[in-house]
């Protein structure tokens, strides 16, 4: 297999030109998916376009009251931004469940998102938080919801020549709290059998005014389960409401059986994790039961 070419452009437009000019070229951020796939033969790029030398691709900065995370920002670096950790702890935790410390010092949320594994850890948390991604391409920039990027296992909505430049998180709403939990056979190092990302808004009266429940590894892409959120909105998160939420989660889950889990187990765990993640998010929203 001939070795791909390697480029390290210094601007976004240079990167766009390289990617648009060669449909078999691939962007490189952390490399913890791309390089693994190159070694196994699953991905055979003609060229590698290293994004890490482009200004602004690494780092977290305030944006529109919320945050913009450069697409090449390693997961561990997210923990260093106190404001981000305070606003979206679930997102930061989700990203910091991927692989090992060594992997997280390189892996990125954008890479995790664009690799489009149904089990990607950062994606349910990002969807629950209402994150968007800024995409650069030959026809200019566009911003879409993170939820709309993955199209199926290994497939995204990126057009030829496009790549994600940054992931944007909104400001944390007052009374907001988020969480991400996943099920793995071991304590670390596993791909999620199921992942549940939850973001709640609970107003000072104790009433839940917003609930976004997103599940990973129960469908070809991570799912925002509208019915599950609706089961909580307007309630005080009583047990009955949470149970209805879990039922909606299970009903919406359509996992496959594979080497990581059976259909029955995944469906069951989707409900269990959603309930537990609601519990964590609710605590973070600062309201007692």
């Amino acid at each position, binding site marked *: *297999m001939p*070795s791909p070419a390697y480029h390290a452009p210094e601007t976004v437009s240079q990167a766009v030109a390289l990617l648009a000019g060669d449909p078999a070229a691939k962007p490189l951020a952390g490399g913890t998916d791309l390089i693994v796939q190159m070694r*196994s033969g699953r991905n055979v790029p003609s060229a590698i376009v290293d994004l890490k030398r482009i200004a602004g691709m690494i780092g977290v900065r305030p944006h529109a009251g919320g945050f913009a995370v450069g697409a090449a920002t390693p997961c561990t670096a997210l923990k260093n931004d106190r404001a981000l950790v305070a606003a979206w702890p679930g997102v930061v935790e989700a990203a910091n469940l991927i692989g090992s410390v060594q992997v997280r010092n390189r892996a990125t949320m954008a890479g995790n998102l664009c690799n489009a594994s149904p089990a990607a850890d950062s994606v349910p948390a990002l969807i629950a938080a209402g994150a968007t991604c800024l995409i650069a391409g030959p026809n200019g920039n566009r911003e879409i919801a993170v939820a709309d990027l993955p199209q199926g296992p290994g497939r995204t909505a990126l057009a030829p020549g496009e790549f994600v430049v940054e992931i944007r998180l909104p400001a944390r709403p007052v009374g907001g709290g988020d969480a991400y939990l996943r*099920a793995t*056979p*071991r*304590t*670390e*190092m*596993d*791909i999620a*059998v199921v992942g549940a990302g939850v973001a709640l808004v609970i107003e000072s009266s104790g009433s839940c005014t917003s609930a976004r429940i997103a599940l990973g590894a129960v469908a070809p892409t991570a799912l925002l389960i509208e019915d599950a959120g609706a089961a909580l909105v307007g309630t005080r998160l009583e047990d009955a409401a949470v149970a209805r939420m879990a039922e909606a989660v299970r009903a919406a889950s359509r996992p496959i059986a*594979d*080497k*990581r*889990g*059976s259909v*029955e*187990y995944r469906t*069951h*765990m989707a409900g*269990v994790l959603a309930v537990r993640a609601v519990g964590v998010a609710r605590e973070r929203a600062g309201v007692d039961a």
Partner: protein
Amino acid sequence: MNAPQDKHAFRVVGTRPVRPDGVEKVTGKAIYGPDFVAPGMLHAAILRSPHPHARIQGIDTRKAAALPGVKAVVTGADFPSLQSVVVAAGESSSDIIHLSRNCMALEKALYEGHAVAAVAATTLQIAEEALGLIDVDYAVLPHVLDPEDAMRADAPLLHDDVFTKGAEPKPDTPSNVAMYVTLNRGDVGAALENAAVVVSGRYTCQPVHQGYIEPHVCVASWNADDQAQIWVSSQGAFSVRSLTASILTMSQADIRVTPLEIGGGFGGKTGVYLEPVAMLLSRKAGRPVRIAMSRSEVFRATGPAPGAIVDIKLGAAADGTLVGAEIDFKYNAGAYPGNSAHSGIVCSIGHYRVENARISGMEVLCNRPASKAYRAPGAPQVAFAVESALDEIALKLGIDPLDLRLKNAVKPGDPQPMGPAYGEIGYIECLEAAKAHPHWKAPLPAGHARGIGGGFWGNYGGPSTAVVSITEDGSALVTTGSPDIGGSRAAMAMMAAESLQLPYERVRVTIADTSSIGYSMVTGGSRTTFATGKAVVDAAVAVIGTLKERAARMWNVEAGQVEWRDGEAICLADGKTDQRLKIGQIAAKAAFSGGPISAEVAINPGGYLPGFGVHICDVEVDAETGQTFVRRYTAIQDVGRAIHPDYVEGQLQGGAAQGIGWALNEAYVYDAAGLLDNAGFLDYRMPVCSDLPMIDTVLVEKPNPAHPYGVKGVGETPIVPPLAAVGNAVSRAIGVRMHDLPLTPDQVYRAARRKG
């Protein structure tokens, strides 16, 4: 951590000095298999069958051979024709033709990953590109992956020349059942009928890989004058020499095998996979050739421990006395025979007195990589069933599980399953140590459950050679042919230092190549500290004899008038009792007092004794998710005498961790097409650091009278008890008997749900 219980008058044995190869290993300087470079070496890659079962109708390598940079191509046709003969292969034995075919297929590919061709080139990239240019004409055949499928009359047949060994009458049709072994004593039917309680069940476990972190790699150089060198990390350089020589029909003296530092073996690196291939490539190319396996190749093409299906019926009297056992097991053994079912028979209930027993074992072939030894080969699978059945009996009779085992445990003088009476074994002492241990007495936190498992391994002696020589300045050099897989260099140095009465730092150990020392069997089988160690001690004792003779000559007294004490010669002759000679003084004059001072001992010592153990495991099971967390673990074993307690403790801890992985998460997963779906460390789930608690150990020391320092083999026993220790704990946690390993969260959740 409990230190050995007896205090001895040893200076060195029983202490914990830094191992002699330690500094090199913590600084990254040690040369392991993959680190070795031979000048001018080529890089080779292996083409492997994508089909689990296929006839190879033709291989066209012409385009590959023509690729610039390619220096040699080999296929199965390049291997010499062999006569069928069974040879020792590490810890087991196999037909040399099968071993050769496993290195490279000829008529058939018998598993996905089976090597069918190899290319050596100036770079690895060119070699891999050349593989893509090799055309193999496969006629795909139906495949079979599980033993009971493989035993059906209409099952695809792997070999038309394998007939079930041990079947009576001798079969004349070939079979996928390679071996059938039975043991019968007493009248088990009557015993079970009269038993107060009989438990029965089917227990299964999956093939699991040894999981050594260093993949297989070797460098071979075979010259036109027939002489060859192989550099390889192996548990036995002599095994590599003899198997390579047999497969390539060479004289053994023509091959020098240099053992490099080895990154784990556990039984899996006691044979050959790459060496004969590298040799043939090297012969053709006229240059050294390096072949390295990737992790994926290690999983697809090297031997796991076999899985097993075990059907058991165990009966006991009301007081817990075991009265009868019926055990039938089938190993899922992979593509070639060579896994003795004897150890499964012996280690099933050999640790208990059971008057009536009918045990049978089968080795069943399937289209998977051929099994290889993995610590106590064949024992854990069957012991899992027996120890689980014992737990059921304990629960049914309301007897403490340790007391149940104490009641039935074998003692010195009890008959062995196959062979003479047991010698100075220590199962009772281990069980008593467990009873007295704080872990056993600790109250169980809420939500935790406790299980125990017992077991043993027979251990071995084996042919071993050692040399002890004294340098001119009075230091000692120990040379053996036993690779160091876990600290044995330190043990050899310590035993030699103890025998010579020298400081540990004055004794250095070398592991020599096959041309530089006489034969030793593999480092495996829990034999090295016992047998090679005995050779070292015997050689040290012989050297002391020589030192005394030389001192006598220097003093001009009779040889019998010299004593060796505290590392010095003491003169006993009248009028000279104040005379002393240090070892350095004697050594300095050696050339003139008779010549260099050294001794070589080559032995095959008997008197090795089995090692018994019992493990205690506390788990917490989250019934909602099915996840099992191991919260506390204690491994107790009779080790005879711990020469270096750190490394003996390490064997217990490492074997326990492997057994925990086998019980909870490790298994091969095949897709619908019979292809391995988890050929990597991501989805072949070995325990990681955060999965385990500290593993406490108790080294029970009941010395072996047949070894100068009382050593019993320790390395393999530790993997036998954990499967049931974990299984019994989980079963007690959820109130459902778990029969099938691994106990994945999925499995445990479903079992817990069935119960509630």
